[in-house]
């Protein structure tokens, strides 16, 4: 086992290299992952924006954090698809029958997802700049924003690993993302929560997306992050641990059956 430890980082490097090649050879997936959030941003800013009383002069600034979350949620679904393909094509079995650390099989995909989402968020920021997004945030605030977005991506990617391993069809592997994409809409991301009916408002104000959105919005505005950053971090870390736990369970379960997907259907 000592040799497995010794080679952990070199194995992880090979796995990450493989996933990054996949990513750069299917740039269309980045376009697909950014086109919906960008479309939403255009829709909210130029169609709905005039009617929304956000209380800010620059509505692009207001919606951008929510657009980030929608983009990450749809971007992580590619991790599910790629993992599902690995299991289905038998590549997973080939790797597992080799003397390599098993956790690198999942971590390679997860780290590649961070790169994927970083690119897609960068594209969105560029489009937002064209639409009038301006920020007075300093370097430390930007670092905090990048860190928080990386943590959110990590969390959502580990959630995405679960359907990637457990789904029985390629469609099943992708549908998990829809509720996650929808979640920012019932938060403070696009309209202030005070305009919502009581029950919806109670939900919106106590779900993780609101804490994350408010934190990023404050940081972008150059304001000091309120205590909401701690709520956002607690949500992310808590869900990350849970998702990691269930993903590990799913990996064990997936790998304890001889029948693969072809045979089962």
């Amino acid at each position, binding site marked *: *086992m000592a*040799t*497995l430890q010794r*080679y952990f980082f*070199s*194995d992880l490097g*090979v796995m990450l*290299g*493989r996933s990054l*090649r*996949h990513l750069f*050879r*299917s740039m269309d997936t980045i376009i697909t992952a950014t086109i919906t959030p960008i479309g939403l941003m255009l829709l909210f800013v130029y169609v709905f924006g005039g009617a929304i009383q956000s209380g800010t002069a620059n509505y692009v600034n207001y919606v951008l954090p929510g657009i980030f979350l929608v983009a990450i949620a749809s971007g992580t679904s590619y991790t599910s698809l790629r993992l599902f393909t690995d299991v289905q*094509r*038998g*590549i997973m*079995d*080939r*790797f*597992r*029958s*080799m*003397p*390599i650390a098993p956790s690198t099989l999942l971590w390679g995909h997860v780290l590649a997802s961070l790169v994927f989402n970083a690119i897609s968020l960068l594209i969105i920021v560029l489009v937002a700049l064209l639409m009038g997004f301006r920020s007075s945030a300093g370097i430390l605030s930007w670092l905090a924003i990048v860190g928080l977005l990386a943590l959110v991506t990590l969390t959502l990617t580990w959630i995405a690993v679960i359907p990637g391993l457990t789904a029985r069809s390629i469609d099943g592997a992708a549908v998990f993302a829809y509720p996650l994409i929808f979640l920012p809409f019932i938060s403070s991301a696009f309209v202030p929560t005070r305009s919502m009916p009581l029950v919806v408002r109670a939900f919106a104000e106590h779900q993780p997306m609101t804490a994350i959105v408010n934190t990023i919005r404050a940081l972008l505005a150059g304001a000091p992050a309120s205590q909401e950053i701690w709520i956002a971090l607690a949500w992310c870390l808590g869900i990350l641990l849970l998702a990691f736990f269930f993903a590990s369970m799913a990996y064990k379960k997936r*790998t*304890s*059956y*001889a*029948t*693969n997907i*072809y*045979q089962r259907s």
Partner: protein
Amino acid sequence: MPDIAIQVKDLHKSYRQLNVLQGVDFVVEPGRIVALLGPNGAGKTTLIKILSTLLKPDSGTALVNGFDVVTQAAQVRHSISLTGQFAAVDELLTGRENLIMIAQLRHLKQPRQVADELLARFGLTEAANRRVSAYSGGMRRRLDLAMSLVGTPPIIFLDEPTTGLDPEGRLEVWKVVKELAQGGRTIFLTTQYLDEAEQLADRIAILHQGKIIASGTLQELKKLFPPARVEYVEKQPTLEEIFLAIIGQKEAC
């Protein structure tokens, strides 16, 4: 190298209600090509997955290259390679990249050189820099087998190596498997085709209802059946023979 390449004793495995393996015993000597013959659902894949450490047996023992598949899985993985039922190649990578990746994961010193040698040996040099998604079924299988040879493991498992291939691809794979065996490697393959077992293997084991019901050389197995009678039957060419004759593959006849 131990005297026995694979040793299986009283192996049991069931999924919920389904008893797949019900006391499998056999021994494989080093350097042999052994075919495990059985119908679909006989438990061939389950057995291969246990021997390649992908699945744990319910009871019984299995030693591969002298190592226990449950308690010494890491050593077993160093000794084997597995080629599954569906060519397990990375479609978005090129043939060369696939081989280099496996060589790196086996921690070889010169992954590129290893990859180029195998590409040449399997007739894939020309297609080396093309993505695998553009390969034919036979080429994929050849690449798949080449990936199994990276790092020269002494024991190779092939799970239904010709399933899903056209007749030409099947002959191609047969040729490669025969070559693989020349290096003194042990090859353990499963198949549902009698002619494939006859063509490739020097020993055949028949798995039926969870047990090995017969094993031995082809000659030994033939003795189990009634002596041959001489009959005169007009032999029509099979569609396969016609097909191969038309496309000019004379070696099939």
